[in-house]
């Protein structure tokens, strides 16, 4: 049974003069430092949140550049080496007529990372100043980014499996390229960026009488 929602009579923990634990949901007076139920550190709002979001985002952007320029894989077949980048790998799959798989890799390695950069930057810039956007929409955006970000790791795992399996000396071998490490770092940094976000900041705008 889901409790039906209505917007009247909502009160946030902060407006009630309390602090809520983001780990277990317990509501305690503001002078309590650590949650008595789950021992997490208590904070009404994470003030440094946006700064950490931006820091991780910039780190993620920086390593995303070499991730696209350097080869992800170096395939050696019959003494001939061939390098393939992230986008090159997608093109290869299309040549193999594996359109569905090509689409998965393209979405995981290009669409999701780029979309994540844009959405996180948008949210971070928007929330650092007054705005009139619908918090429900922003909340959906943030939830989507947090949920989907980790799926970008697919390409890194593909490289790992290919490298482990295809080791036939001169006949064929596959070696990882620098881009694999850069891309993995980029995914980790943007995941940390999305996690650094305090989602309660999204809703503060609708809470009337909220200081600052």
């Amino acid at each position, binding site marked *: 049974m889901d*409790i039906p929602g209505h917007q009247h009579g909502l009160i*946030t923990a902060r407006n009630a003069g309390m602090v809520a634990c983001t780990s277990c*949901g317990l509501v305690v007076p503001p002078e309590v430092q650590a949650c008595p139920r789950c021992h997490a550190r208590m904070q009404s709002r994470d003030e440094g949140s946006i700064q950490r979001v931006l820091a991780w985002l910039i780190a993620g952007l920086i390593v995303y550049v070499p991730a696209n320029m350097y080869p992800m894989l170096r395939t050696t077949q019959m003494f001939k080496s061939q390098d393939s980048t992230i986008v090159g790998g997608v093109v290869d799959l299309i040549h193999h007529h594996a359109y569905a*798989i090509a689409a998965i890799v393209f979405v995981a390695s290009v669409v999701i990372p780029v979309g994540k950069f844009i959405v996180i930057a948008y949210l971070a810039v928007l929330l650092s100043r007054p705005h009139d956007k619908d918090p429900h929409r922003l909340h959906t955006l943030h939830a989507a980014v947090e949920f989907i970000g980790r799926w970008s790791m697919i390409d890194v795992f*593909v490289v*790992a*499996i*290919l490298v482990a399996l295809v080791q036939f000396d001169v006949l064929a071998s596959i070696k990882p390229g620098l881009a694999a490490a850069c891309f993995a770092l980029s995914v980790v940094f943007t995941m940390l960026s999305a996690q650094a976000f305090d989602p309660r900041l999204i809703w503060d705008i609708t809470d009337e009488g909220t200081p600052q």
Partner: protein
Amino acid sequence: MIYDPTCIACPQCDVVHRFSATEMVTRTRCVRCGYQLTLGKSEAITRVVGLALTSTILMGIVLFAPFLYLNAGAFDSSASVVDVVLGFASGIMMPLALAVLVFIIVVPVARSMLLIYALAPLLAGYRNATGAQSALRWAFLLKPWAMAEIFMVGVAVALVKLAGMATVNTGAAFWAFVLLVVVNTLQDTFMCRNTLWTSLATNTA
């Protein structure tokens, strides 16, 4: 110092909810943002511990059995999950090998261990283990970093890439890993934060 456990704030939007005893054991969502506050799993602890044990045993099979066999003409190779991880383990790729190891093996195993450590004493009727709260909190925090299901999608993509080049057969570890993903997913549907935290807090043994 025990606070009212029927009073829960949404971790996403800070709205305070007060639930009756009957509502606490059902599925509840935040009235403002829709976040799932309780999952309505009263038997959560038994299931979570059982599934965590299952997933630890499966991981044992995954680690040491062959994962995939590859056959190309006169050449045969097989790779276990450990081989997959060690594939990167040379020179500058070492950090990447460690990352893959952490995401597909260490974090899933660590989560199972933490859950067993924190919750098994409740089942057995003992008092909470030292640091049970931190263990359970970390089990929740590590969730996004356990990437077994993503690894399986990676395997599917790799199989397609290899299809033209060689014949690929699946080993015992492959199917154990598929099961592991199912077990972990099932486990997460039982991880009702409120049920687990309330049980730990009210353990009087």
